[in-house]
């Protein structure tokens, strides 16, 4: 596994998808995020762990262009993001799945089709059906979203994110409210799109076991600061920082 990751990353090293330097986000003089340096590599699964309120979600929203950094540089596709750029066409390559499914008051099919409609694609019916089938939702295609269980709803939300074939998928605690069956289905799908479509994935999780299962690399945020990023095996077995060591040993209660 580690060797395979090494090889995969070796191929991608020239093409960093995101690069951040000295990036901070402040709300009214309160620093909520500080990233000295971070690279997101094309085609990797990057896990972000850390206690609640450590800035994980803020970092994810910045990667998703939903918030702008207060200071510092963010590069996407080797180009500096500056408010003018990226424009809607580039922003549409990045999508985010939230902890709660946030479905629209429509049918399952209409929810999954939503992103395609936004892009003016009205012939996406087959793609929608195919995605619904892959997530085991075919029988619920015509059901109203509000009638679904939590796990079903989150699978619909994932289908809605994936049907637009994003280049980057950002996941904000995507399975924290779900049962093992649904967690497994969603993780399986995440691995599959990463493998088959080389989709770049950044996943924020409270669950260090999920980070172990999914991620090629893992980053730790603590007290609003990105402390360490490392290969998953290294991160857990040979942490470079005292905070990381304490966190992986479970000494930090969160």
């Amino acid at each position, binding site marked *: 596994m580690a060797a395979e990751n090494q090889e995969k990353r070796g191929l991608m090293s020239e093409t960093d998808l995101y690069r951040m330097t000295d990036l901070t986000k402040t709300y009214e003089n309160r620093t909520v995020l500080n990233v000295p340096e971070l690279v997101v590599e094309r085609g990797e699964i990057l896990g972000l762990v850390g206690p609640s309120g450590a800035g994980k979600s803020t970092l994810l929203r910045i990667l998703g262009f*939903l918030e702008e950094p207060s200071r510092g540089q963010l590069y996407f596709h080797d180009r500096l993001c500056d408010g003018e750029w990226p424009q809607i066409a580039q922003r549409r390559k*990045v999508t985010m799945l*939230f902890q709660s499914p*946030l479905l629209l*008051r429509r049918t399952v099919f209409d929810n999954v089709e939503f992103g395609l409609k936004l892009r003016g694609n009205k012939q996406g019916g087959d793609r929608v059906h195919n995605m619904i089938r892959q997530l085991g939702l075919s029988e619920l295609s015509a059901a109203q979203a509000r009638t679904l269980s939590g796990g079903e709803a989150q699978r619909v939300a994932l289908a809605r994110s994936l049907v637009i074939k994003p280049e980057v998928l*950002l996941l904000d605690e995507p399975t924290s409210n779900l049962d093992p069956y649904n967690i497994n289905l969603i993780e399986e799908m995440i691995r599959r799109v990463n493998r088959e479509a080389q989709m770049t994935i950044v996943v924020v999780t409270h669950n260090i076991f999920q980070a172990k299962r999914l991620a090629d690399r893992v980053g730790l945020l603590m007290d609003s600061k990105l402390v360490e990023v490392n290969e998953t095996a290294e991160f857990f077995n040979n942490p470079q920082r005292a905070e990381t060591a304490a966190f992986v040993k479970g000494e930090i209660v969160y």
Partner: protein
Amino acid sequence: MIEALIEGVQLIFSGDSGFWEIVALTLITSGTALVIAGVVGVPVGAWLGLRSFRGEGFLNSVIYTGMGFPPVVIGLIVFLLLSRKGPLGWLDWLFTPQAMITAQTILAIPLVIGVTMSSVRGISPTLRMQLRSLGATESQVMRTMLSEARFGVIVGLVAGLGAAISEVGAVMMVGGNIEGKTRVMTTAIMLETRQGNFQFALALGIMLMSMAFLINLIAVKLQTE
């Protein structure tokens, strides 16, 4: 009393042209007021519901005051605006259906704006982020949020129509209750009651209540789909 009620019901089904003329004018003026209030109020309400800005609290107070504004004061203002020496006197609208529609629209708009605004605000702010993250432009976000708030918007429109159709004072002041020209159901009920013409007043009353009931029935139906 019972006698008048029976005669009133008979009048509704007798095809009395004066009666139906009044009903038709009521529907035309209230309906027009509702359309204008909807076309203006729904987008404004949605826009206000999606944005936070300085003076928001003040604006909310203005809208909520408007939702409960004494109609008779609206009537007075519209009367002064449209009177011959008023700034809009050149329109020559006083004592016409246009004047009544103006007053009814002013009454209905704050209701439509206020209810639309609060139902849009009631939608999770994270949903907005989710929509943008799925690739929605700002106008697509607004349209989707409005569609999510559609049940609230319907309530706002029904409230607006209810205010317009049941209004007496303002409509009487600016319309003048002229037979065959500006006489609507509410003003006719008032006049006929005063003249002791109870069966006519009751017939109109029954009709007005049935219409109100029907409108709400449709609204509830739309909400439960």
